[in-house]
C-alpha cells in the first residue's frame, strides 16, 4: 500500500463558540487530484490552513508524505506547495524576484534555484515578463505567478485554494490545463473551489464540504448516483415519432422514453448519456427522424449539493 501524500484524520477547529471544521478526514495519493467543493464559509480555507500548518487544529491530525505536521512542521512543509486564494506575491518585485525569494524560503539557492525559476516561468508563460514589477501584470498573469510560486520547489502536494477567482476565461483555462498537467506528472493536488465545473473537470475525487463537515466524498459519478437521478436526452424533429420511440427504446442505455407529439419531441431517461448519444441519434435518424435539436441534461454537482444539503452551492 502506497503512503498517501496527504492523510487528514478527524480535523477539528473552533473559533470561540463556532465550530468551523468538524471532523474532516481526507486522503490523497500520488498523482491524484481531489477537490473540496463547498460554498463560501463552508470551512474550506480553514481546513487548508490547518493542512498547511498555518493554524493549529483543536483535534485530529495532518500527515504529509507520512510526516506529522504537528510534531515536525518544517519537514512536513517541505513537501507542500500552497497557492493561496489571495495573490500572495510582492507587487513591488518582479516575477523572477518573487520566485527567487520564495525559493530561498524553501532552501533552494544558486544555479539550481535559477534553473527552476526559469522553468516555472516557462510553464506559466511569464518568461517574457520575468523582470518587470509584478504590480504591472494583468489579473491573470498575477494568478499564474501565484501558482508558479507554489510549484517552484516541486512539492509532492500542491494545495490550490480557489485559484481561478476573478480570472478571465482564457487565463482560467490555462490554469486548469496546468493543474491537469501537474496531476499527470504524479503530483498530488488538493483543489478547493465553489465552481462545480472546475471540480468536475479536474478532480478524480470530490469531497463536498458544508458547515465544516465533509458530507459526501467520491468520484463525480458516484456522487451523482446519490441523487438517484440519471441523464436526460431530448430529441426534437420531424418524423414518425411512434416508430422512432420504439427504435430508441431498444437501446440498452435508454431506460424510459416519453413522446410529446404536439412538440415533435422525444424525452429519454438514459444511463450514461455521453456514451450513448451517438447510438441514440443514429437510431432515431435511421427510424426516419429529421433532427432539429439534441439536448443532453445531466445531474451535476450542484444537484448533488442541493440533494445533500437542501441548499444551492452558491448560497
Amino acid at each position: 500500500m502506497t503512503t498517501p501524500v496527504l492523510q487528514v484524520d478527524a480535523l477539528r477547529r473552533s473559533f470561540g463558540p463556532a465550530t468551523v471544521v468538524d471532523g474532516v478526514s481526507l486522503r490523497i495519493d500520488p498523482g491524484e487530484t481531489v477537490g473540496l467543493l463547498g460554498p463560501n464559509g463552508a470551512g474550506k480555507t480553514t481546513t487548508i490552513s490547518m493542512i498547511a500548518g498555518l493554524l493549529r487544529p483543536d483535534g485530529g491530525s495532518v500527515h504529509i508524505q507520512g510526516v506529522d505536521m504537528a510534531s515536525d512542521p518544517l519537514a512536513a512543509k517541505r513537501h507542500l506547495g500552497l497557492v493561496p486564494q489571495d495573490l500572495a506575491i510582492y507587487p513591488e518585485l518582479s516575477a523572477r524576484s518573487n520566485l527567487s525569494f520564495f525559493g530561498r524560503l524553501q532552501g533552494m539557492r544558486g544555479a539550481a534555484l535559477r534553473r527552476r525559476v526559469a522553468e516555472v516561468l516557462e510553464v506559466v508563460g511569464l518568461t517574457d515578463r520575468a523582470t518587470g514589477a509584478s504590480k504591472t501584470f494583468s489579473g491573470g498573469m498575477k494568478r499564474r505567478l501565484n501558482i508558479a510560486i507554489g510549484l517552484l520547489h516541486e512539492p509532492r502536494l500542491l494545495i490550490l485554494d480557489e485559484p481561478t477567482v476573478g480570472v478571465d476565461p482564457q487565463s482560467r483555462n490555462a490554469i486548469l490545463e496546468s493543474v491537469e498537467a501537474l496531476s499527470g506528472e504524479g503530483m498530488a493536488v488538493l483543489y478547493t473551489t465553489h465552481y462545480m465545473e472546475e471540480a468536475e473537470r479536474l478532480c478524480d475525487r470530490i469531497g463536498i464540504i458544508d458547515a465544516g463537515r465533509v458530507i459526501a466524498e467520491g468520484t463525480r459519478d458516484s456522487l451523482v448516483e446519490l441523487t438517484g437521478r440519471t441523464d436526460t436526452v431530448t430529441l426534437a424533429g420531424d418524423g414518425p415519432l411512434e416508430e422512432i420511440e420504439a427504435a430508441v427504446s431498444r437501446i440498452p442505455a435508454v431506460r424510459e422514453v416519453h413522446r410529446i407529439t404536439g412538440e415533435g419531441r422525444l424525452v429519454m431517461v438514459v444511463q450514461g448519456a455521453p456514451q450513448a448519444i451517438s447510438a441514440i441519434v443514429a437510431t432515431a435518424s435511421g427510424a426516419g427522424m429529421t433532427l432539429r435539436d439534441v439536448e443532453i441534461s445531466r445531474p451535476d454537482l450542484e444537484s448533488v449539493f442541493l440533494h445533500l444539503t437542501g441548499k444551492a452551492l452558491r448560497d
Partner: protein
Amino acid sequence: MRVVLAIAWVELRRFLADRSNLFFVLILPLAMVAVIGWQFGSDRSGAPLSVQGPGGAATQALVEGWEDAELAVTLRDTPELVQEDVSRGSAEVGVLLDPEAEAAYRDGIPMELEIITGSSSEAPAVAQVVRAQAEAVATEAAQVGLLETFGDEAEARAALDDASTLVPPAQLLVQEPEDPVAVAFEGVEQFDSGAVAQLLLFVFLSTLNAAPALIKARRDGVVRRTMAAPVTTAQAMAGLTTGRVVIALVQGAYIMLASSLLFGVRWGSLGVAVVVLLVFGLVAAGVAMVIGVLVDSEGAASGLAVGGGLVLGAVGGSMVPLEFYSDTLRQVAQLTPHAWANDAMAQIQRQGAGIADVWPQLGVLAAMAIGVLVLGSLLLRRSLARAM
C-alpha cells in the same frame, strides 16, 4: 540564517521601491538638524553678551564700553532672561547689575557685577573681555570722581596719578555655571544636541513604517505563504526585524556622517553610538511589528506610527532636551525608549562615554526590545488565524 537574510533582503527592496521613503530617511532629518541648530544657536555670534541692569549711568557706561570692545550686547529686563540666554547658548556671557552697583558707580567706589559664563569654548574669552572693559569703566568713574574733588589742576593730576595706582578696580564676582542645564550642555556646539534628538526621532519614525508594510504583506497573503514554507515564526520575525534595523542603521550612519560633515556635529565614540542605535532600532522594529499585527488597516497603522512616534519622541526628549524637563516629566519620559537613547547618546557625545558608561541605558533598551519582539512574534502567529 539564509531564510532570515532572504526575508530581510526583501524588506529592504520593498522599502527602497517606495521612493518617498528616501525623502523621510535621508533629506528631512538633516533639514531638521539644520533648522533646530540654527534656532538654538543662531544668536550666538550676533549677541554674545546678555545684560540686565537698572538702566542708569553705570549700565549705560558699561554697555558702551563693551560695545566699544566689539561685543554685541542684548539688554534684558530680568535676571532670569539673562540666565536663559546663557543656558540656551544664545549668549556666551551674562552680566547682572543691581541698584547698589549703580550707586557705587556714582560714588566712584568699587561696584560689584555678577557675571555668568556660558558653557561653550568661547565663553571664557568673552568673559575676560567683559571683565577687562568693566574694570576700565570702573576705573574711569573713580578718576572722574577724584577730578571733581580737586579744583587745582596740579592737585587733580596728582590725584589722578594716585587714582591710577590706589583706586582698586571694580570687584567682579564671576559666577561659574552652576545651573544644571548649563552644566549638562557644557561643551555642546550649535548643532550637536539637535542632531542627536533628530537622529533618534527619525530613525524611530522610519522604522515604524514597517507596520503598514507588514499589514500590506498580511493582506496580500504573503505572510501566510511565507509561514506555509518551512519557516518558523521566530525566523520570520527575525527577518522582518533585521530588514528594518538595517534601514535604521543605514539612516543613522548617514545622519551622523552628513551632520558631521555639514554642521560639524561631534558624535563621540561612533562604535558606542552605533550600538545604542542598534538596540534602539530593535525596539522600534518590535513596536512596528506589534502595530503591524494588531491593526488591520494600513492607513490607521500609518497614522498610529507617525502620531505615536512623534509623541514618544516629544516625551522622550527628541523635541525639547530632557534637561529642561521637570522631575515628574523626566520620570514619565523614562517610559519611552527615546529618553534612554537620548540620555546614552548625550553621554557619548558630551562626555566621551564608552559602553561601560551607558550600559544601564543599553540594558533598559534591550529589555524593551526583547519585550516587544516576543510580543510581536506571538501576535504574528495568532494573526494567521484572523481574516483581513
